[in-house]
C-alpha cells in the first residue's frame, strides 16, 4: 500500500516539474473545461469555419414588433411605407425580434437619442448599408450574411461575405491605430477559452443596425467569442462611446456554424449593385 502511494507522489512531482519547465497544461481541479468536447488548435478552441448570426439584430438591436417598412410616411389613417419602398411589399417589412441588448434599452444621451430618431426618419439616405459601405463592428457580425474565421498558430482573421469586409485581428498589439477606419483596428488575446478582441480606431460613419443606432469616432468595442460546443459560439460585445452613450452597454447572442456540406462564403462585393443608386443621376442619359 505504502509503495503505491510513494510511487504516485513521485509521478505527480515529476509531472509538476515537467509542467513548470515546459509549460504543459497541468490538469487541476476547477481548470478542466466543462461541457462538450471542443475542437482545439494549439490548446485553444478552434474557431475556424463559417459562422452566422440568426436574429433580427441587423434590423433593430432593441426589442421590436414587426413593422411594415424601414421608411414610412404619414398615411390617412396610420403611417404607410414610403414611396421608394412601397413596391417591396412584405419583402421590405421588418420582422419582429426580442432584441439583443442586455437590459433592453441602449443608454443614449439626449443628443444621441435625437440623432437616432433623425437617422430613422432619414433611413434611406443615411444607412450606410444601403450604399454597400463597410458595415463596421459589431454590425458585421450580425448581418444576414455569413463570415469565415481563419485562425492559425500566428494569425486570426475574419472575412465577411457582406461587401467583402475584412478584419485582421492582431495577436500582438501594434499600438494605437495610425488612422481611423470603417472596420477599426482589432487586437485579440485569449482569456482561458474565450477569445477577446479589443477594437477601436473607428470612423463615425457606420451604424449599428437599420434602425438608426449610431456612434462617434470614440467608439470602443470589446468582443468575447466563447465556443460553447463545436457548432455554437456565444458572442458578446461591450460598446463604449462617451460621446453618445451614458454608460457602456452590451449585446449578446449565439453564432451558428454553417453546417451544410461545402459551406463557404459566397461573394457579395455589392459595390457594383449600387452604381445606379449612387451615380445614376450622373449618367449622360438617366435610365427612364
Amino acid at each position, binding site marked *: 500500500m505504502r509503495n503505491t502511494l510513494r510511487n504516485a507522489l513521485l509521478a505527480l512531482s515529476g509531472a509538476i516539474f515537467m509542467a513548470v519547465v515546459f509549460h504543459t497544461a497541468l490538469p487541476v481541479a476547477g481548470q478542466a473545461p466543462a461541457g462538450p468536447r471542443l475542437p482545439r488548435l494549439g490548446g485553444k478552441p478552434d474557431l475556424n469555419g463559417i459562422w452566422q448570426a440568426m436574429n433580427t439584430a441587423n434590423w433593430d438591436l432593441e*426589442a421590436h414588433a414587426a413593422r411594415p417598412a424601414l421608411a414610412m410616411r404619414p398615411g*390617412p*389613417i396610420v403611417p404607410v411605407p414610403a414611396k421608394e419602398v412601397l413596391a417591396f411589399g412584405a419583402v421590405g417589412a421588418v420582422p419582429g425580434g426580442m*432584441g439583443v441588448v442586455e437590459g433592453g434599452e441602449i443608454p443614449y444621451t439626449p443628443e444621441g437619442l435625437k440623432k437616432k430618431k433623425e437617422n430613422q426618419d432619414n433611413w434611406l439616405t443615411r444607412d450606410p448599408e444601403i450604399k454597400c459601405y463597410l458595415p463596421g463592428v459589431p454590425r458585421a457580425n450580425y448581418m444576414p450574411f455569413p463570415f469565415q474565421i481563419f485562425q492559425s498558430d500566428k494569425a486570426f482573421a475574419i472575412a465577411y461575405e457582406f461587401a467583402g469586409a475584412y478584419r485582421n485581428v492582431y495577436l500582438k498589439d501594434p499600438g494605437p491605430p495610425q488612422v481611423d477606419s470603417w472596420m477599426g483596428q482589432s487586437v485579440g488575446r485569449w482569456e482561458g477559452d474565450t477569445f477577446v478582441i479589443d477594437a477601436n480606431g473607428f470612423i463615425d460613419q457606420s451604424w449599428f443596425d437599420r434602425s438608426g443606432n449610431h456612434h462617434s469616432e470614440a467608439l470602443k468595442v470589446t468582443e468575447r467569442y466563447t465556443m460553447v460546443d463545436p457548432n455554437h459560439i456565444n458572442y458578446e460585445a461591450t460598446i463604449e462611446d462617451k460621446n453618445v452613450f451614458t454608460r457602456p452597454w452590451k449585446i449578446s447572442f449565439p453564432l451558428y456554424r454553417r453546417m451544410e456540406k461545402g459551406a463557404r462564403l459566397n461573394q457579395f462585393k455589392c459595390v457594383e449593385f449600387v452604381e445606379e443608386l449612387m451615380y445614376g443621376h450622373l449618367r449622360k442619359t438617366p435610365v427612364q
Partner: protein
Amino acid sequence: MKYRSVLSIGTLAVATAVVCSLGPVAAAPRFGGNESSGGGQATPAAATAQKAAPATAKLWTMPRTADGKPDLQGTWSNATLTPLERLPGQGLILTDAQTAQIENRTKEVAAFRDAPSDPNRPPPVKGGEDRPLPPGEPTFIERISASAGGKVGGYNNFWLDPGERVLRIDGKPRGAMVIDPPDGRVPALTPEARTRAMQRAARTKAFGEFDHPELRGLAERCLLSFGSNAGPPMVPNYFYNNNYQIVQTKDHVMIMTEMVHDVRIIRMGAGLEHPPKPVRPWLGDSIGRWDGDTLVVETTNFHPQQQYRGASENLKITERFTRAGPDQILYRFTVEDPTTFVAPWTAESAFNRTEEMIYEYACHEGNYALSNVLSGERSKEKRDAEKIKKPQ
C-alpha cells in the same frame, strides 16, 4: 413468510391501482353534448346517458400525454346557437321550451332556405330586399346573417354553418356564455373606455366607411376571423369554420384556428415572462401552466388593432381548458381590463370533437372582396361626381 409479504404488497398495489383509475371519473364535470352541425358528436344515446345522474355515467379515464398531462389534442369545434350575452327573458339555464324554440326554429329555417329557388323569380329590387323567412321570432343568429349582406344576397344558406344546438354544460342548456356578472351580460365600459370609443367614432366620422382599407373590419382585411375565433378569447363566429386543432408537446400547446389559419403558441414552463411592452403580436402572448388537470393560459401584449370589445393595451385574458370527456373540452375565460370594463367578467363554452379535416383558410390570397368594396365605392364616387357636373 417471504411469500406472504409479497402477496400482501401485491394485493395492496392492485387495490391502489383500481382506486386510482376510478378517481378521474369521479372528478370529471358532467355536461352534455354541444354539437356542431357537421361533426360526429356524441350520439343521442350517449348524450342522454351523460344527461343522466352521475352515478350511472360511463367509466371514462382522462387521456394523458407521454408526460402525464391531460391530452387536449385533436380537432375541435366551438360552433353553437348560444350567444355570448344573455337575451332578455332568459336565465342562466334555458327552459325546455326556450331550448326547443331555438333548436327547432334553426332546423326550420335551414330547411326553408335549402328549398330550391324558383327559377322564374325576378331579380331583387334595386337596393336589395329583405329575404323571406318562416314566420316567427328570428333567432339572434338570423339577425347576424341578415346583416351580412342579406338584402342584396350576401351568403346563401349553403355557405352558413353556425351550429344546430345550444350550449349544454353539465347537461343544462345555456342561454348565454357569460356567467359572471350573474346577469349574463358584459359589464359596462369605464368612462375612459367610453371616451376612447367616442374618439374612435369621431375619427371614423371624419371618413366615409369605404374611404380606406384600414377602415374596413379586420375580417374583411383578412387579418383575423369574423368575431373572435382565435382571440383569445376563442369564441364561435356564428358563420362557419369554427374549427381548431390542438397539438401538445412537453413545453408548448399549439392551437391552430381555422379562420384565418392563426396559430397560437402557448409557452409552458416555469419562470416564463411576457415580452417587453413594444412587442404586441396579433393574438397576444400566451403563457400556460397546469393547475391539476386544467390548462390555465394567461395572455397579454395584444396587438393595438385587436381591441376585443373596445379593450385597451391593458387587456389580460385568462383561459381554462379542462378535458371533460372523450369528445369535449370545457372552456372558460376571464376578461380583465380595468381601463375598459368596470369589472372583470367570465364566460363558459365548450369545444366538441369533430371528425372533419381542417382546410386551409387562404383569406388574403383570395381577397377580392376588399378590393371590390373599395373600387366599387370609388366608381360610385366618380359617377356621383359626373352627375353633379352635368345636371340632367
